[in-house]
């Protein structure tokens, strides 16, 4: 039996502390030259797609702009369209919220990207926190928290109606729209849909509507459990197990030897979690001003304040502050960790650390053992973060016959090995598929 083929996505290093800016090799986060270098490298490496995250408001901490991490990014759809102009095969997936967009303008823009890129557009569907991000948009905080996923689902359905072309109308709880779109048929029928939520609702939305899941379950065991759970949900929507690809986010640290890679990891983690950043992370859980604490000293004596929230504009990973604080205290006491050492430990993400051979082999194992269909890798450096990976890891995967030597399909959908897009009207769907094929 032939081996499963690995899917690889390349995330442009984002607005967070994982992107190292102190390294002499760190370049501009915004100049087009950086995006050009990045996209040309990953296309040379035959990656499936480039992936961009989203943040529609500058992050804040204690009512002030967060200064410690990389900040500032381009408009997602604009930069992806520019990148489609200088590449020919790599897919282009942007994270775009359903909360502060409307179906007609967004579907039209994604259709534009799909046509201009020759069928390489993808949309990672997310929802946004209402009041904080809403302050930058006409409608403001318009959506009750509990209705975010309902709106997302209805938004995707409305977008598909628009992508089908001609007269469109969509009438649901959140939308009452009608018009005429002149852009169909799109090269892919519809752009690739990715989904990043990990909640019960997020998994269900993905099983019903998505082509890809961007997940957080990077370890082998957690990945296998998530993989089985989501794939088992597909049948009820009449979809095959191949119709949805599962791609955890991950990082990598390459070295010539295992020891060298571990040393590099240590140095990079120290850069990612600066002394001040360690305090900022701690403040997110403690919800108190801890700026007078020594990052190399012990945890605060006081308990977290469980009233209002201190940090804004980032995914809230610490739902239960008291419980998190208790666990961290226990870990720090058991292993004698300072604040900074503890934060380095607890904010670690899934990483492959080792030689090109060992990393290639680990990636392959996760895919062959059904913990994933591939990975979305985020390097820690802009713009050269994939240079070494493309030079050293990709050839090993190709040698193992688990990764393409060249692009086989013309579209992102084709390269991912996905079935044709779901469009609302069956008859029109078949007709479009026929026209695309011909």
């Amino acid at each position, binding site marked *: 039996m032939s081996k499963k083929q690995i899917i690889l996505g390349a995330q442009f290093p984002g607005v967070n502390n994982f992107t190292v800016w102190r390294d002499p090799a760190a370049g501009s986060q915004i100049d087009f030259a950086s995006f050009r270098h990045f996209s040309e490298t990953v296309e040379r490496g035959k990656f499936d797609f480039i992936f961009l995250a989203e943040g529609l408001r500058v992050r804040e901490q204690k009512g*002030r702009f967060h200064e410690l991490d990389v900040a500032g990014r381009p408009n997602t759809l604009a930069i992806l369209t520019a990148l489609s102009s200088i590449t020919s095969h790599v897919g282009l997936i942007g994270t775009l919220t359903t909360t502060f967009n409307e179906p007609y303008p967004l579907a039209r823009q994604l259709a534009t990207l799909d046509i201009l890129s020759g069928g390489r557009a993808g949309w990672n569907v997310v929802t946004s926190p209402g009041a904080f991000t809403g302050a930058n948009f006409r409608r403001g905080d318009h959506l009750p928290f509990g209705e975010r996923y309902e709106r997302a689902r209805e938004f995707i359905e409305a977008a598909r109606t628009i992508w089908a072309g001609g007269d469109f109308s969509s009438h649901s709880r959140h939308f009452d729209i009608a018009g005429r779109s002149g852009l169909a048929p799109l090269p892919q029928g519809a752009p690739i849909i990715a989904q990043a939520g990990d909640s019960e609702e997020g998994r269900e939305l993905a099983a019903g509507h998505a082509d890809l899941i961007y997940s957080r379950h990077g370890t082998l065991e957690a990945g296998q459990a998530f993989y089985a759970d989501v794939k088992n949900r597909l049948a009820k929507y009449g979809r095959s197990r191949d119709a949805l690809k599962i791609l955890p986010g991950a990082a990598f640290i390459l070295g010539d030897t295992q020891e060298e890679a571990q040393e590099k990891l240590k140095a990079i983690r120290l850069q990612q979690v600066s002394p001040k*950043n360690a305090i900022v992370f701690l403040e997110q859980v403690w919800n108190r001003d801890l700026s007078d604490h020594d990052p190399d000293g012990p945890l605060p004596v006081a308990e977290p304040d469980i009233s209002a929230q201190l940090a804004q504009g980032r995914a809230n990973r610490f739902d239960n502050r008291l419980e998190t604080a208790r666990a961290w205290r226990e870990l720090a006491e058991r292993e004698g960790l300072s604040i900074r050492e503890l934060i380095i430990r607890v904010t670690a993400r899934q990483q492959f650390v080792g030689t090109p051979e060992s990393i290639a082999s680990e990636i392959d194992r996760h895919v062959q053992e059904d913990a994933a269909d591939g990975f979305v890798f985020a390097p820690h450096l802009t713009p050269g973060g994939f240079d070494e990976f493309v030079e050293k890891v990709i050839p090993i995967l190709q040698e193992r016959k688990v990764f393409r030597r060249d692009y086989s399909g013309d579209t992102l959908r084709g390269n991912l090995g996905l079935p044709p897009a779901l469009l609302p009207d069956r008859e029109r769907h078949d007709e479009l598929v026929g026209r695309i094929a011909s």
Partner: protein
Amino acid sequence: MLLGVALDAAAHADSDRSSWGGFWSGLIGRLDGAVDFVTLEDGFARAGADGPDAVLLANWLAPRSRDIGIIAGAPVNLLEPFHVSTAIATLDYVSEGRAGLLAQRLREARAAEGRRALGALNGFPADDRQAQDRDAQAAIEVISRLWDSWEDDAVIRDPKSQRFLDGSKLHYIDFEGADFRVLGPSITPRPPQGQPPVAIAWAEGDDPSLIREADIVFLPAGQGEIGDVIRDSRRGAEGAGPIFIADLDLGPEGPSIAGLVVAAKQATELGAGGIRIVLSDPSVQLGQLLSEVLPGLRDAGFVRRPSGGTLRQRFNLPVAANRYTAAA
């Protein structure tokens, strides 16, 4: 004087999708270095012929050109100003300072179509011209303030203080208009030009204050009113005011070089700083433009080869001061 070309982003929209790349690539390749700028009108909610998003098309064209200014259209009274601001700022990064915004104002039937396509939403203007114009003006103000919301030296990368950013150089724009409010700052650092030029196409009944706030105003040539509009907008106004560009059609019969030269001369005398040739059918007219019209206008001494530089430089606009830096 300046020479530009007006294109509609939906110009090729009816053709086979796989031919779009070749069409646009060929077009921009031939115009680049030949004219100073191109405008791309957006067909948002134009029933059945909306075509591609013009700002995205502009971002696709920018890396395929080296010299030409690209002024991308967006119907600002029916879009989120935050998204428009970051998309034009991105165009300015991609084109290295050649970006501009054509702020389109949808009215009447088009606006009504737009409202149907968007749904009835809070924060968007009502269906009357006054509300739509007021909203467009507010949206332009927000877009422009957001461009200034990062000072040029906001990114400090200072290992000593462990700070990537100097937060004191980011600013809330805190805009509050009749229909909506926007807090800011932008997520995109200040674009290379600081303020990419904002253009509008003049329409009958426009408020002179709107005209004065634009950097570039397109006026239909061949009508007496062009002189009146320019005179009215300059009356009692301080500062330089916008640059007026006269629109010329090539006409259904093909161009008459003598006629175009006369029209261009007339426009200059009335105070226009350039002309924009409207190409309603570029696949036919582009050849005429390059082989006949352009040499004709050059021979008559009206236009020169493009001078290069940023779009602001080419329109002779001063370096854009940052309103928030100036206020500090």
